[in-house]
């Protein structure tokens, strides 16, 4: 045991001596949380909007003011002609143009209807969709106010939409669990595979294997510091997203931490497996980065919902560990569910851990033969 502890201490020394390792361990997660949380926002705020008002009456004024004062939009300019629309988009600040037809107000009161066009900049599809949805909602709201209960003879079904679990539809509710999922598998798998292949490459692994340390102790000793540091990382990320974004953990924090440990363990065994199949550090880095990062981002449901993918991708994503953890962590953090609802995913992660461990042990033995 004393031998083992000395060995673990040495691994910590490696980590703390190498500022690059430290940066990857703690700098990147912090940066990613902030970047994903702030920059890649799916919410609209102050989107540029131009108005082409061919009517210029009281109603169009009111409606324009309502749209601008909603907080989602900011008026960039008033247009006079249809020809100006293209120019406005090309200047770049305007994301959508609202066009009121001629005699908008007059038509509305005499005929009971009038039309308004929303032209959005389709080169940014996500923003365009969001903007049109938001404006439509505001316009609908305005119509209702204008008509009032007295005028409203036909029965109107007015849906009242509420978002459960994330009432304001904040994007970081989605990104924080995603970032934790991605960071953990990346760091654990990358770091362990690199640290083990480094010993192989430098020849120190041979010396260790000749020593009285058992292979199990060597691997455990190499992996243990990363287990501890990754766990600290989870705490840092959770703390950071609570402080900066006010993201709460609705469910049991103990369960969340326990599941995180399981996921870290799974990622570490995956890292060990990668180290047994790669000949040098470059290969280990390559496999960990390309093999894990892209699939995690694309196929785990982190950004793109798996339900909307073609069936084939759905099957492919079933072998991606992040898919299960992301479900678990979202359930616990945002919905506040207990183990009852996520036991299946938990079992899959346990099975994967065992599978990777078994495979690594076999590979390791073959190498020793």
């Amino acid at each position: 045991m004393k031998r083992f502890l000395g060995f673990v201490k040495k691994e910590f020394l490696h980590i703390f001596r190498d500022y690059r390792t430290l940066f990857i361990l703690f700098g990147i997660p912090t940066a990613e949380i902030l970047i994903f949380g702030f920059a890649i926002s799916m919410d609209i705020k102050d989107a540029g909007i131009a108005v082409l008002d061919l009517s210029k009456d009281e109603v169009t004024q009111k409606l324009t003011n309502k749209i601008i004062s909603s907080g989602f939009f900011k008026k960039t300019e008033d247009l006079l002609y249809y020809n100006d629309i293209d120019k406005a988009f090309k200047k770049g600040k305007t994301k959508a143009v609202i066009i009121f037809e001629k005699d908008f107000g007059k038509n509305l009161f005499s005929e009971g209807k009038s039309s308004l066009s929303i032209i959005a900049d389709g080169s940014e599809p996500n923003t365009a969709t969001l903007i049109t949805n938001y404006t439509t909602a505001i316009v609908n709201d305005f119509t209702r106010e204008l008509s009032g209960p007295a005028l409203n003879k036909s029965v109107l079904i007015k849906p009242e939409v509420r978002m459960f679990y994330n009432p304001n539809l904040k994007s970081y509710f989605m990104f924080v669990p995603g970032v934790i999922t991605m960071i953990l598998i990346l760091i654990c798998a990358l770091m362990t595979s690199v640290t083990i292949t480094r010993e192989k490459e430098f020849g120190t692994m041979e010396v260790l294997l000749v020593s009285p340390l058992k292979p199990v102790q060597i691997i455990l000793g190499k992996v243990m510091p990363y287990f501890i540091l990754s766990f600290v990382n989870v705490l840092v990320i959770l703390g950071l997203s609570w402080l900066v974004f006010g993201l709460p953990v609705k469910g049991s924090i103990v369960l969340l931490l326990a599941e995180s440990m399981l996921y870290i363990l799974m990622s570490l065994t995956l890292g060990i497996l990668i180290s047994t199949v790669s000949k040098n550090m470059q290969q280990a880095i390559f496999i960990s980065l390309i093999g894990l990062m892209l699939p995690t981002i694309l196929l785990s449901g982190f950004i793109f919902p798996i339900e909307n993918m073609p069936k084939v991708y759905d099957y492919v994503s079933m072998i991606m560990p992040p898919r299960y953890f992301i479900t678990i962590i979202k359930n616990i953090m945002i919905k506040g569910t207990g183990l009852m609802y996520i036991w299946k995913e938990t079992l899959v992660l346990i099975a994967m851990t065992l599978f990777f461990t078994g495979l690594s042990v076999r590979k390791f033995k073959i190498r020793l033969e």
Partner: protein
Amino acid sequence: MKDTVISVHNLVKKFGSFVANDSLNFEVYSGEIFGFLGANGAGKTTAIRILSGLSKPTSGEVNVAGYDAYRQPEQIKMNIGYMCQKFSLYEDLTVKENIILYGGIYGMSKSLIKERLAELLAKLRFQEYENRMISDLPLGLRQKLAFSVAVLHDPKIVFLDEPTGGVDPITRRQFWEMIYETAERGITVFVTTHYMDEAEYCDRISIMNEGKIVALDTPGNLKKQYNAESVEEVFIKIARPVKN
């Protein structure tokens, strides 16, 4: 009568159908410097890996430091030291930290490690390097330090797998002086090398070719037997017999 520390009878190691070691038979005596020569691919590394417990023999009897290679690999590991071709110290740790690490791995007590560390630094005259990173040391010093670390725990046998690769002649000379001192302390030295002049320094040498030991004797006897001026000539006559 000399004590035998390594005895090998009919050792065979196969990788699939390839025979890397073909019935090796030899004994190594306590306190001697045993040179293990052979061309690349002759099976030296395979044999040294088996003797040091890194790999299991396919068949045959192997006894190292009084322990059986099949049943007591752990005891063997406690009693041997090992230094491989590649450099074996951690570059991002200091001299002191490396020594504490290896001492700890071999279960040495803290006071013993301290004592040995002071001894070692005095002997190699590098007290001022105690807290320097290995990566700051010149290659020759590192190599000597690696050797000192390999015998830190007073093993019965130390295996050196091409320890002087890539080292300048002066450092090589100093390195061999350290090997002599170690042998005088009663530690058996089992060394593989490419340099034939180094083979002359060994008490006995064995020459391997295509998985078999084709010669085993003192350098003097071998030279006589093959009517050669140097071990190099002996080696060339054995390893590359004139064809046709």
